[in-house]
């Protein structure tokens, strides 16, 4: 298997050329926000399986793990493609995903508070996951600012499609959201680890 490698100095040169020379953002070292984002992603990763486990134990079995929501981008990617991503893509894809996830987690939280208000543990875990996702968004924005990359605008990924779903659909989307939250967290850890290694020097 061939792995594409990127020399950090070439990226830095490129960034220097692309960024405005007097930009204050570019003068900030990206290492610190990357490190902070990486730490947060690692912390999130420790709790994703617990969230999914709580969700499943409360809602009963679902079958196919390949259930997907069209409003949520999938975290899976071909390794070669993923590895070849430039910094902008590497940050903007999870940025968009976590933006969508924060909205979906809020939706699931609403669903669950409606389904079973007497389940405080799941509701607390969902709320905590949403807040951490928002925190990671902020950290990623700081990295993008430090690297002089444009921050993707906030979008309403759910729109009106969220309403009128059946109980089964709501259960399923809760399952998909909690699962995708885990997948995207795993991916963010990998992305940030790569960036951390790149900008640690």
């Amino acid at each position, binding site marked *: 298997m061939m792995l594409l490698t990127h020399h950090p100095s070439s990226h830095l040169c490129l960034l220097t050329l692309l960024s405005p020379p007097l930009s204050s953002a570019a003068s900030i070292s990206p290492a610190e926000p990357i490190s902070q984002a990486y730490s947060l992603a690692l912390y999130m990763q420790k709790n994703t399986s617990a969230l999914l486990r709580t969700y499943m134990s409360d809602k*009963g079995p679902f*079958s196919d793990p390949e*259930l997907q929501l069209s409003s949520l981008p999938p975290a899976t990617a071909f390794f070669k493609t993923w590895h070849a991503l430039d910094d902008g893509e590497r940050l903007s894809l999870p940025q968009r995903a976590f933006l969508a996830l924060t909205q979906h987690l809020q939706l699931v939280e609403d669903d669950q508070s409606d*389904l079973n208000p007497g389940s405080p543990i799941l509701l607390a875990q969902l709320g905590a996951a949403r807040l951490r996702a928002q925190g990671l968004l902020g950290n990623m924005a700081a990295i993008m600012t430090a690297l002089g990359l444009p921050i993707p605008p906030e979008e309403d990924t759910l729109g009106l499609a969220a309403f009128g779903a*059946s*109980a*089964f659909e709501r*259960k399923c989307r809760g399952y998909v959201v909690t699962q995708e939250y885990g997948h995207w967290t795993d991916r963010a850890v990998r992305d940030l680890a790569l960036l951390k290694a790149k900008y640690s020097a």
Partner: protein
Amino acid sequence: MALFAIFQTTSFLTLLSLRTYQSEVLAERLPLTPVSLKVSTNSTRQSLHLQWTVHNLPYHQELKMVFQIQISRIETSNVIWVGNYSTTVKWNQVLHWSWESELPLECATHFVRIKSVVDDAKFPEPNFWSNWSSWEEVSVQDSFGPGILFVFPKDKLVEEGSNVTICYVSRNIQNNVSCYLEGKQIHGEQLDPHVTAFNLNSVPFIRNKGTNIYCEASQGNVSEDIKGIVLFVSKVLEEPKDFSCEAEDFKTLHCTWDPGTDTALGWSKQPSQSYTLFESFSGEKKLCTHKNWCNWQITQDSQETYNFTLIAENYLRKRSVNILFNLTHRVYLMNPFSVNFENVNATNAIMTWKVHSMRNNFTYLCQIELHGEGKMMQYNVSIKVNGEYFLSELEPATEYMARVRCADASHFWKWSEWSGQNFTTLEAAPSEAPDVWRIVSLEPGNHTVTLFWKPLSKLHANGKILFYNVVVENLDKPSSSELHSIPAPANSTKLILDRCSYQICVIANNSVGASPASVIVISADPENKEVEEERIAGTEGGFSLSWKPQPGDVIGYVVDWCDHTQDVLSGFQWKNVGPNTTSTVISTDAFRPGVRYDFRIYGLSTKRIACLLEKKTGYSQELAPSDNPHVLVDTLTSHSFTLSWKDYSTESQPGFIQGYHVYLKSKARQCHPRFEKAVLSDGSECCKYKIDNPEEKALIVDNLKPESFYEFFITPFTSAGEGPSATFTKVTTPDEHSSMLIHILLPMVFCVLLIMVMCYLKSQWIKETCYPDIPDPYKSSILSLIKFKENPHLIIMNVSDCIPDAIEVVSKPEGTKIQFLGTRKSLTETELTKPNYLYLLPTEKNHSGSGPVPCICFENLTYNQAASDSASCGHVPVSPKAPSMLGLMTSPENVLKALEKNYMNSLGEIPAGETSLNYVSQLASPMFGDKDSLPTNPVEPPHSSEYKMQMAVSLHLALPPPTENSSLSSITLLDPGERYC
């Protein structure tokens, strides 16, 4: 009569004509066919809703009609339901009717048609059914929207145990669709190529978030679509239990019930069941906000009877319970208050309380409970508003808890809650004398009495015991008595009394007063009665003791013992037994297996003097011995040995030692007499001998073989078994002749020693006899003569005075030191400083006498340093022929020849290897007798004894190099009578 007949006929004709008219009218308008049939659906309820009208009805007329409805599924010919619906139909009325389908309406197209018939008493038979209306098709599949798989019903609410039909619609018949209920696949019935239905019978309640059912459409292994539903299964609503209402204060009725299972479901599909209280006399209704209680306000003082209905309701079911009661019969009082105690003393107190007033002239029944000392007393009392009760027969210094509850005395319904308070009675003087016993030990001139007493029980102490007074009265001298005050909680004291009779009283005191005295008398006569100790067997429950009654009057018996043998003070115990009892069982948890307990039984005379009756000793449970004796092997002979273990104590064992087992191992297969074969725990065989007497602590093992190897092991045994297994001790019997040798050798050694002692004692005599002292030439006067001439290197000697004897040539390698023994030491020193001396030694062989032989040394001028360094040293015996050679040796050549010759002779005489010195010719000194005669001719010129040259022949030329040993061995060449200088 005729008039009546005419009237009757006319009336009949009139009625007939009217009926005929009506029939004609209906006949004209029939059939009354249902028209404008419209069918709508309710997916949530899975119902078809029909509405229609009936044409041709007379204006403002009502008719009872029957409508027959037919419902087909999928196709019109597949009629699945037919039923009649009877109703009264008005002119221009729109009729409604609903039908609920077990199959979700989304899964199949339904067809409905209807026909009718008049079923009214106003119209006689026959009636005819109208024609069927046209089929009305009902289909909701058009509203599915995009997708290839759909599952119904969505989010349906059903009750646990009901039957449910679910179905899916697959738009692609090539897809393989599998459906799962909570992860387990279910199998259904295909209604058409697109639709399959699943009948779920008696669905269970799984969780309040619903049961998950989903279907997956796939082609091959590729999942095309997944769709699912949640079936909300509610628990069956239960009827409220234990519904009752009661009044606390005639203002509010408090109704309670047990609601049973909560039927709430998630996602607001069904909230918890609601409860409504309905009172039929007043017609009032109240929705209860709590699920298990509700308060009803009493508004009308006049209403005493109430009829309540409690209705529990959820989305699926309604249940109700009813109670009818009189308000005055349901009075549940509030708990009493202001509970107090007055005039509390040692044995009684007055308890007071108050009750919340209900109505005037109301009588209350109150119940009092008194808890104290693990007991409970209950009293009932009838009161008005203020309650009071006299509590008597209380125990002093005791904490009590008293509580009270009340109820309506006229119509008892229920006790109120308890109200209580604690109180403590005052102390009183101790009611009983302490139980006292003693240990008396005799000492010269004294009794040492250790008094023990047991603390008074709480029942008898009547308060906290502060101290004990011990009064000692001398019965022989009544005027003298002593008082010892011993503070609690001590339970013993030691008194040293003289040999008089004493009465000792022990009195317990608390803050209020003193207890009766406990009296014990110590007799002036010592307890010198010898009592045989009897062995008894205990059990796990204790010791069963019995004794012979004491002659004469006794007031009782006392058995004492010690729980802990280590600490008498803390472990001393006793038990009082009545005068008519001569047996008792001593049982206590303190008894331990393997510990010997000694019991003494005393009789108490009327004068309270104790007399030791019996002693008993035993174990509650005997154990096997904890250790084995240390065995000594005595008198080991070739045929026997003796084993002894005199030091083994049989008393300090965890059981009565009954004897010993002696195990003996030998190579012989047969056991010795008295021994029997035994198998050890490790499976090996040996011989065993049993000693039944525990005091027999020695055993002679005989009939053994000489020079044989034996192993033995001795272990004591009790009734519980043997001592611990240990290693065998090894013994080897000696040789049979060794003893004989000892018998011979020992006298021999003794004799030798005796001779040696004798020799030592007579050494002077022997010495004088055998070894007279040899004169030392250095101490002779000739030395002074030499000094006088100031030539230390020349010794002039008159040869005629000497008898030529021998010359010792000292030739020593540099650095080698010659070892001389005894008297030769001084010579050695001389030799070291004067290495070139030749020593002229007399030989005893030339003397028939045994007198001392003088020794004279000459300087050897012919020696060179090389010769002297050759380190040869020795004494060579000179041939007795030497004097005859004297004349030939005056010239150096002759001397050399003579030396060579003598040397060769010497070699011929002396065994090679033993000699280390060469020979030198000598002249015998003519001197005899006393050495003191030497200085007689000190300055006489020598005649022929002056040596001009002597040749020393180095030994190493012909012999092996001299060594220290060889020089020593050279000494052995000398005759025993030779002397060294």
